[in-house]
């Protein structure tokens, strides 16, 4: 589904603080299944995820998404791909404060020009599915960590993406909530979505939801293999 070929990412290129965050990464992510990116802090997981999710461009290398070369596409198209293909769950949830959980879920769909009523209905269904329908009209700052997490998941799902990308999703959750999160990922996987999670939390990469572990260190892939 996604192919990375010899990806290199350099921050502050040409300046004294030049930093190579990703070096020579070649990786193929198949459709369906759950992949975990594992590795110590600073090993380049987040950087690699943002390249995979069309949020950032690599300094060198090629990316193809469903046989389509996307490395050189203009920003506009990348945004469209991001919106239609990926659902993001961020480490800090990154919900927009001051508006309701429901509105947060609906936001990524606004540029599609979907009818407001039908969009609202879909967003509500997602929240119900994640068992937080009762919190739909609450402002997000009043939500508990688990509720905020579920709202963020619903938001990631609103545009019905093929691929879910999560960066350290359990960093702010206790053990029980972390396990619940993995259960939700299991359901999504069963529905046929491709899951990509970066984490150095054993609850994530030791979970039986994960089919494949890609281990990183210092910007390189040190091992990549299917979980037996």
């Amino acid at each position, binding site marked *: 589904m996604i192919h990375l070929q010899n990806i290199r990412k350099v921050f502050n290129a040409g300046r004294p603080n030049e930093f190579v965050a990703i070096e020579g990464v070649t990786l193929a992510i198949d459709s369906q299944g759950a992949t975990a990116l594992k590795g110590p802090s600073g090993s380049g997981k*987040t950087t690699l*995820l*943002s390249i995979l999710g069309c*949020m*950032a461009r690599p300094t060198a290398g090629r990316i193809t998404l469903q046989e389509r070369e996307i490395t050189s596409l203009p*920003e*506009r198209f990348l*945004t*469209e791909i*991001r*919106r*239609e293909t990926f659902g*993001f769950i*961020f*480490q*800090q949830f*990154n*919900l*927009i*404060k*001051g*508006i309701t959980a429901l*509105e947060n879920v*609906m*936001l*990524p769909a*606004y*540029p*599609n*020009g*979907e*009818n*407001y009523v039908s*969009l609202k209905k879909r967003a509500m269904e997602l929240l119900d599915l994640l068992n937080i329908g009762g919190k739909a009209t609450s402002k997000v700052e009043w939500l508990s960590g688990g509720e905020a997490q579920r709202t963020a998941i619903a*938001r990631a799902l609103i*545009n019905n993406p093929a691929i879910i990308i999560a*960066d350290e999703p359990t960093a702010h959750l206790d053990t029980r909530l972390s396990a619940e999160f993995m259960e939700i990922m299991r359901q999504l996987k069963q529905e046929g979505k491709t899951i990509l999670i970066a984490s150095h939390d054993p609850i994530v990469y030791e979970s039986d939801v994960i089919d494949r572990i890609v281990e990183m260190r210092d910007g390189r892939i040190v091992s990549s293999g299917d979980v037996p």
Partner: protein
Amino acid sequence: MRALEKQRNILDFTLSSLGRRKGKNIALVLVYTFVIFLLASVLFFSHSLKKEAALILQDAPAMTVQKLVAGRQDLIPTHYIDSIRQIKGVQSVAPRLWGYYYDALSGANYTLMVNADLNDRAGEIVIGNGVSWRSAAGKRNQPLRKNEIIPFKTYDGSALSLKVSGLLPFASELVTADLILVSETDFRKIFSIATGQATDLVLQVRNAKELPVIATKITQIHPDTRPILREEILRTYDAVFDWRSGVIIMVLAGVFLAFIILAWDKATGLSAEEKREIGILKATGWETTDILLMKFWEGAAVSLMAFFMGIFLAYLHIFLASSILFAPVLKGWSVLYPHFRLTPYISGYQIATLFFLTVIPYTVATIVPSWRSATIDPDSVMRM
């Protein structure tokens, strides 16, 4: 249809966004409203004043003839009337008696004018609204009523008490506020003006096109006179009002500039929270144009709200609240207009000018800086 729905959704979000930063946005709208209020007040005020003056002067005589002595206006002998009446095209010539009287009691200047209706009722006067409030002879907050007495001091030092027999109608307060109509006898007594002399002469002519020719003839017959055409007075009034509102506009330009700086500062200094939100929107699939669209609606909503509130308040201020704020600046020539009320004249042109001076620059000022933040790399969100 999709495009429309998209606009609607984004506008919807913009409006609920505005509600989120209530304090900041309310403060902004208030300052903005105040600026619009001042600008609109000046525009409405000077425009209506000009209109009013023009209306009054419409009924003014087509030509006034003054006598000059050493370049200053002097009393004109009434026998000039006969020779002027002989000029071809002149319909009628009439003497006028009027002047300014300083009332030491109230500290105000009145305009005294002889009215023929009072000529057989010497001892009586008819007064304007401003006079009735001002010269309440010691009594505060109470206008002078019919049959009350106003004491005058004549130029030879004696006193003359005149009885108020009526009040002037309200129609145009600009002219009538400080006006006192008196009989000819009393006028001559107060100012010690001999019979056979008048303040000036007014002419009616058959054809307005002949006015310049007639004016030339008058100066030929009486080289010591100066004929003044109504058109000239109109022009002078225009110039005076323009100059006065010009002064105010200069002051306002300062206020306006301060506002622009404030708006610019507000817009360029996107808060960290706002930057974060733009990042989130971009990361979740909003395009740069969607974010600019949102910022456009935001700027438009704030400035339109302020625009309409400012105009509404200015209307109240000028046409219902007697222009309290400007009275001292624009009408420095009299202290007589405490209840001055203008007839509302508003032109589409004024509103459009205001719109282009305020709403447009503000909206642009909110979009431009967002452009920069809208082009932030979306992956910055991953590291927040």
